[in-house]
Structures are given as structure tokens and as C-alpha cells.
């Protein structure tokens, strides 16, 4: 396949074949990606990896009085004969599934304007792999130069990925957009008295020029590893717990899992059926904005061709809306919120675009200063969150606070509570909103959680 067929032509071919075989409706998504990743440890290259991929996904709906039957297939073999075969398989597979009254394409409301969301800078296409590797070397060197106790590292990794998404459906929508993501990630190791601690820092951007200075990333990563040296457990207690922006993001991920339309209609979320109730403290306002310029979760249209938009999820503690695609919306009698998320190889589900907690006015150090005794969490491990009940219990590491001051690093403890109660006990929101992905948060403080240790 020296001259691969044009992406839009492949999508059109898949759709027309599915229809010809009896599909009542169909959609197809073609994702083309290419990219490079490299890792450096100290001065030495660890690996360099280059990739190119194209994947086509075909979804077909077969009609029935009781509803539509659905199936999805995907392939990386884009020869037209292979696409024809896949379309046949999709329709045959759909006939084996159950008729579902809520299944099907959106009835309308497709994106008509596709604004430039600054997702891609064509100039970055002329990528100098050597220059990217040099920035990893620079981060690595800055981390090691910061302190003699930085003796080792898991390396500094750079990546640049370019994507092109083409999506079309038998409802008449055809759209495409290009995006890029560039990253630098540094993970040094500090050593003292025979004990080792690692930590990381990173920068992510849609443009290479928007990335943070590599040396600053290296120094920040090293400082984070150094401050963990000498960490110890604390006695089991109930104290205020502060999450830094990196760890506070996970709280928003949990919130997302509970406001996703699928969890709501399945009643696997403790927030199901609670629209307009006060579910959090008045400090909590959460917005999902699909069109934030340059946002790492921004896209002009969602995985079903619906326009992305700004959705208010929580307003001053009140639950204002769920995040929905067409299917979960129909199950709840609501319209899609433009949050259909899909890759070529999977059907739509609900995903966040740029989900964030609105920042407050205090800096993290001011929040620490107003905490007589507590834990500042800088790392969380484990999966101890249950969206059905809100039960929350995770492994944590961080810094201990006494009298409004950081006294020593902490490790090997767990923090536990109920997520619903944690949201209501959220009493401080920092000004330090940090975007390192599609979910972002400033620092937050929960008035009381159980810290388990020695």
C-alpha cells in the first residue's frame, strides 16, 4: 500500500457498503497517528521509538421494530477489499445482538462550525528528533545538577504525537481535525542513608514551543524527589488532608466517574438522581469545556459528530448536570452534552474534554499555613475508589504539617473516607490550577480524613 487511499474515501466506502448490506445507519472513524518517543538516562539514550498507525472503526445499526441492533469492528488493514469485508462482518455481527430502543446515531444537531482550537502547529511537523532528545538530556542534567543526592533516574522521556481524526456517519456528517501532543517527563531518584525516593514532573502542550523549559522541569522533578527523603509513617489519626494539584486531579477523575451518563443510568454512581442537590461544599464549581483553546482534551466535535461545548457540572456545590453521549442521554431522557468519546477501535462512551475545578484565591502555601496539623498529599497509589458507594481508601505519600508548617515527609500511609463526605468537607481551593491533561485541579483541602499508619 504505497499510496494509501484517502481517509475520507475510506470512510465513505465503509459507510456505503454497510448501508448496501442492509444497515439502517452506520458511522466510521479513521484515526491516523504518527509519533516519536525517546528516553535519556543521564547523557545516554535509553531508547528511541518511531511509529505510524492508521485504524478504521465501522459501527453499523441494523433496523428492527423494537429498536436497533449494534456492532463495531476495527482494522488496521485499509485496503478497500479489507474494508468491504469488515463492513460485511459488522452488519452480520449486528444482527446477532439485541434490538435496543435507545441505540442509534444522534438525530441531528451535528457540528456545523469547526473552530480552530489551536490543537496543532503545522510548523512542528518538521520535527527535529535530535532537538527533542536534547531537551530530555537537558532536563536530566538539570535534575542531577540540583543536588548531589540526585544519584540516579528512571530517565527523562520526550514524545511528540500527531493525530488526524476523520469521522463520518450515514446521517450526513463528515468532519475531520488534526491535533498534536508533545510532552517531556522527568523522573529522578534521590538517595540518602541507603534509602531511595523517586518523583516526577512533566510538561505537556499542543505545540513544542509551549512546553516548559526542560531545565525547569528537571529541577522541579528533582526537588520533588529530594523532599521525600527521610519519609516515615505517622500514627493513625483523623486530620485535614491537602491534595496538591497533581493528586487533586484524581479527585476530579473520581467525580467524573460518578457524573458519566453510563454510571448514572446504570445506577452505579452514588450521584445518580441527585441533580440540583448540594453534593459538595460551596467552594466546588466544576466545568467541562470542550473548546478550551489549546486544551489537551479539546476537540471541535465529539465521537458522534456533536459540537463540543462548555458544560457546568457542579455550581457552588450543587450538581447541575451529567456528562452524556447520545446513548446515555436517551437512557436518561436528556440530550447529549457533546461528551461522546471514542477511538477508531471502540464505540462511543462518555469522556471528559477539559474538566476542571474552578480555582480559588489562596496559594498552596497559604492553605498549608492555615492548617494546624495535617497531611499534604503529593502522591497516591492504588485503586481504592468505589463509585457505587463513594468508598475511598488509597495509599499516599506526602508531607506532614504541624502548626501551619511542613515538618517532615510521610510515606506508607493510607487516606480514607467517603467521597460524598469528602466533597462536602472540601473547605479550601487553591489558586494553582494546573493543566497536565484533560482533567485539572488546583490544590484542595478536605477538612477531615482518616490517615492510617503505625
Amino acid at each position: 500500500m504505497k499510496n494509501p487511499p484517502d481517509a475520507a474515501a475510506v470512510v465513505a466506502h465503509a459507510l456505503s457498503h454497510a448501508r448496501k448490506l442492509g444497515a439502517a445507519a452506520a458511522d466510521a472513524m479513521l484515526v491516523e497517528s504518527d509519533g516519536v518517543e525517546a528516553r535519556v538516562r543521564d547523557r545516554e539514550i535509553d531508547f528511541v521509538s518511531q511509529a505510524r498507525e492508521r485504524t478504521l472503526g465501522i459501527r453499523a445499526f441494523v433496523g428492527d421494530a423494537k429498536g436497533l441492533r449494534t456492532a463495531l469492528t476495527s482494522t488496521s488493514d485499509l485496503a478497500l477489499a479489507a474494508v468491504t469485508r469488515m463492513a460485511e462482518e459488522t452488519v452480520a455481527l449486528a444482527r446477532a445482538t439485541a434490538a435496543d430502543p435507545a441505540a442509534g446515531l444522534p438525530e441531528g444537531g451535528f457540528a456545523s462550525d469547526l473552530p480552530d482550537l489551536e490543537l496543532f502547529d503545522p510548523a512542528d511537523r518538521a520535527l527535529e528528533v535530535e532537538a527533542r532528545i536534547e531537551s530530555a538530556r537537558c532536563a536530566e542534567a538539570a535534575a542531577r545538577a540540583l543536588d548531589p543526592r540526585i544519584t540516579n533516574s528512571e530517565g527523562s522521556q520526550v514524545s511528540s504525537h500527531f493525530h488526524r481524526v476523520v469521522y463520518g456517519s450515514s446521517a450526513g456528517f463528515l468532519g475531520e481535525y488534526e491535533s498534536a501532543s508533545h510532552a517531556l517527563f522527568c523522573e529522578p531518584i534521590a538517595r540518602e542513608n541507603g534509602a531511595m525516593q523517586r518523583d516526577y514532573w512533566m510538561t505537556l502542550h499542543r505545540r513544542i514551543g509551549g512546553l516548559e523549559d526542560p531545565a525547569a522541569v528537571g529541577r522541579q522533578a528533582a526537588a520533588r524527589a529530594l523532599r521525600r527523603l527521610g519519609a516515615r509513617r505517622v500514627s493513625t489519626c483523623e486530620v485535614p488532608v491537602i491534595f496538591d494539584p497533581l493528586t487533586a486531579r484524581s479527585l476530579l477523575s473520581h467525580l467524573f466517574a460518578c457524573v458519566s451518563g453510563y454510571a448514572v443510568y446504570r445506577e452505579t454512581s452514588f450521584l445518580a438522581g441527585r441533580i440540583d442537590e448540594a453534593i459538595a461544599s460551596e467552594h466546588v464549581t466544576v466545568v467541562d469545556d470542550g473548546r478550551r483553546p489549546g486544551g489537551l482534551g479539546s476537540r471541535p466535535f465529539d465521537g458522534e459528530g456533536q459540537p463540543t461545548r462548555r458544560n457546568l457540572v457542579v455550581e457552588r456545590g450543587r450538581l447541575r448536570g451529567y456528562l452524556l453521549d447520545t446513548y446515555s442521554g436517551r437512557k436518561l431522557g436528556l440530550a447529549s452534552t457533546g461528551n461522546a468519546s471514542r477511538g477508531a477501535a471502540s464505540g462511543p462512551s462518555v469522556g471528559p474534554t477539559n474538566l476542571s475545578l474552578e480555582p480559588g484565591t489562596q496559594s498552596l502555601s497559604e492553605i498549608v499555613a492555615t492548617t494546624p496539623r495535617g497531611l499534604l498529599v503529593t502522591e497516591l497509589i492504588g485503586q481504592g475508589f468505589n463509585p457505587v458507594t463513594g468508598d475511598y481508601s488509597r495509599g499516599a505519600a506526602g508531607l506532614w504539617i504541624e502548626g501551619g508548617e511542613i515538618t517532615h515527609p510521610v510515606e506508607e500511609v493510607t487516606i480514607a473516607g467517603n467521597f460524598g463526605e469528602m466533597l462536602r468537607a472540601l473547605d479550601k481551593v487553591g489558586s494553582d490550577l494546573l493543566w497536565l491533561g484533560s482533567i485539572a485541579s488546583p490544590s484542595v483541602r478536605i477538612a477531615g480524613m482518616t490517615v492510617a499508619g503505625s
Partner: protein
Amino acid sequence: MNDTLTAVPASFFCDRFGLDDGCLTATLGTALERRVDHADLFFEYTTEDSVALEEGMVKTGDRRLSQGVGVRVQAGERQGYAHSDEITVESLQVAANTARAISEGPGPGHAVAVHSALAPARNLYPVTRPPTDVPVDQKVALLGEIDAYARSLDPRVKQVMASVVAQHRLVLIAASDGTFAGDVRPLVRLNVQVIAANAAGSRRESAYQGMGGRFELERVLDPKAWRPLVAETVRLACLNLDAISCPAGTMDVVLGPGWPGILLHEAVGHGLEGDFNRKKTSTFADRIGQRVAAPGVTVVDDGTIPTRRGSLNFDDEGTPTQRTVLIEDGILRGYLQDRLNARLMGMAATGNGRRESYAHLPMPRMTNTFMLAGTDPPEDIVRSVQRGLYAVSFSGGQVDITSGKFVFSANEAYLIEDGQIGRPVKGATLIGNGPDALLRVSRVGNNLELDRGVGTCGKDGQSVPVGVGMPTIRLDALTVGGTEA
């Protein structure tokens, strides 16, 4: 070539993509024009399908085809990698040129002859019919029966979600040292999730159970296999309706057999992977020969157990899998190695070089990791604890291999009071320190069990199927994270 294991994938890739020995050796030759230590090609063709049920309906069927090739070059500690979803002679040459760019100097440019690897005289997972060839109607029928059965068991069952996932993967590996190994890898998984609510509707709980392995799909279609699994899921969801909050603090913990072996995976397994030890970023670096566990504790990684989810005939670098003793009677004996780290550390590859797909570089990874049985009857172990926690099942875990701290979350646990199993508790998280967790093992049961075949291990963004296992054990003074201070 007398190796029937390799013959099938070899002829598949040759026929389908027009590749032959000449083109494989030419590609490796391109890589070897530079000064390199090793070069290899990894071809993959994977079919995966899944059928999922919820609300009593099979709402969708999926089928995914994924094909591609990865070309890798190693020079010293450096690795160059290029992969493409086009498997053609031209794309192989482009990839080889890209991958070799990590090596600066010209090499001897010697010719390569690929030949069959030291073929293990067994196929660990022969199937007469690939699981992806089972007609979708049979899978749809199975899910319908599971839904009806789960709902018939207890009126508190409100929602049933179930899915069957089948995978058929063909791989072929050709390397500059002459390795030529192919494998046909079936993988099957049945997932069941149940949501239960109490009569008042004031409390809801969910439970998940699954089973799977490298075998024919017919095995999970058998009611004797899936009925106990469904009953177990319903029992767990309903049990959790009565669970109380877990206490927090330090206590003695008894872990049940089987899936709690995830403790070994997190507490020691990752820390014994060769890459972390070569780079000395693991808390276990340079500790071979030292005591890292209590006497009586022996931990192995065994990729050769027939039909297990974590088993492989060859790893993803063409090295036959083996049984590797990691800890013997409490003493650290070995690491898990891929070829790169084995070469750089002057050790032997252990058949643990694994990758998620052709789009990923191999790394040292676990296969099936478990503790051998001891002599204590499990009831005696529970009886030996005054006040503590009995944890039977876990939902997942994670480790920081540098500090050694690990955590895992129980989804079925009970209080132990005066040697008796008491009330169920929810939300228990166990946290510990890898190098000393196994020193706290004070009793080892005589009841080794392996998990049901659902483990997936994540490392550096790559997921691979793994297995774990353990007899009942007692750990003294572990930190339990709960809400009741």
C-alpha cells in the same frame, strides 16, 4: 524445520504478507550494517472480539483486527525501535533504517541466517478452534443464561453486566542471533459484574468476578464453569450490603489463597524485574543472596503452566519461558530478565521479555507469580490471630519500586476476633514496604491456589496478561487503611 509451533505463524505471515526468509534476513542485515549488539523483528496479527450484556440485553458486539511489525536494534544500553501497521518489504526496510539510527558507528555487516529457536517440546495452549471462531450466537446465549441465573439467585440483584472477550494472536519473531520463533496465542475471558441493593433501597454495592486463560472458549460456555463464578459474584455483592467500615491501623492480616497472591506481584515481583535492577532504581538492587522474606517463603515465576493466562510458549523475544525461582526459603535468588537486561547484567534471559503488542518495546515482565505451599492448615492460621483482618479477594494494587511501598485494595474482607472470622468489612486497603512485607510472613498454608485467570499488569503504559497465586498466609503487623480510626 521440525518446529510445528513456529510453522503455523511462519507460513501465515509469509503467505499473507508475501514475506520470505530472504526478506527477513535482508531487513536484519540492514540493521546490522551499523555497530549493534542485537536486532529483531516482531510480527503480530491479532483478532479480538467481545460481546457485552447489560440490562438483560446483549447491546453490542465488537471485533478488532490489529496487525503490524516492530523492528528493534540494540547497541549497548540503547534501543532503537520503529513499528508500523503495514507489513510490507518496503516498510520493513524503512523501519530497519529508522531503528538503527541509534547506533553511530558502522558495523561488520555480517549475514544472518534465521533458524528455529530452541523449541520447547510442548505447546502450553493447543486449541482445535480459535476462540474468535466460535459463532457469536453461542456467546450471546451464554450471556443471557448468566443474566437469568444471577437474577434467580437473589432478589437483591438489581443489575447484571457480563461480557465474553476472546483473542487469537499470531506472533513471529526473527532475530540477528538466528532466533526464529512463532506462536499462536489464544486468550479467553469471562467477566461478570453484579449490582445489589438492600430491600429498603438505601444501600447499593457492586461485585466483580472473572475467569479466563489460554484455552478454548468452550471451557467458559460450560455451566459447570460459569455457574459457580456467577454465584460467587452475587454472593459478594450481597455480602457487601452488610459490610461495616474497615478499621484503620496496624494489625495482623490473614490473606486467603489464590488471587491475594497479587501481594507477591506488587510487594516483590516488580522490584525483581531486571531493568529496575540493572539501573539500580529498585529497592531490591544488589540484594541477591540476602534474606528478603521469612524462612519457609518460596516465590517463583512460572510461564510454563498449561493454559494459564500468564503463560507463554516463548516470550516476545523468542526465548522459551521457564520456571524461575525468585525467593527460596526467604533468600533472594534471581531476577526476571529480558535479553537486553540479561546481556547488560551478564545473566541469562529468563523468558520474561514481554510486550503489549508490536507497537511496544519488550521489557522484563512477570508471567505467573506465586508462593509455594507450606504446611499449615488454613483454619489454624485464622485461629492463630487474636484481632485482625482476613482478606479473601482484592480489586487491584500498585507499587513504587524505588521506595518499595505497595498498596492493594480488598473487595472481600472480614474482621478476625479471637481466632474466628467475624463481620465483613468494606474499603480495606493494605499498605506495606516490599522488602520487609514478606519478612512478616509468620504462617504459610498448605493450600496453594492460582487465581481464576483475570490478572492484567500495567508497567510503563503497557498492559500484559499475568497470573498470581498463593496459599493462605499470615502477615504480622501490616498497616490497614480504613475509615474507623
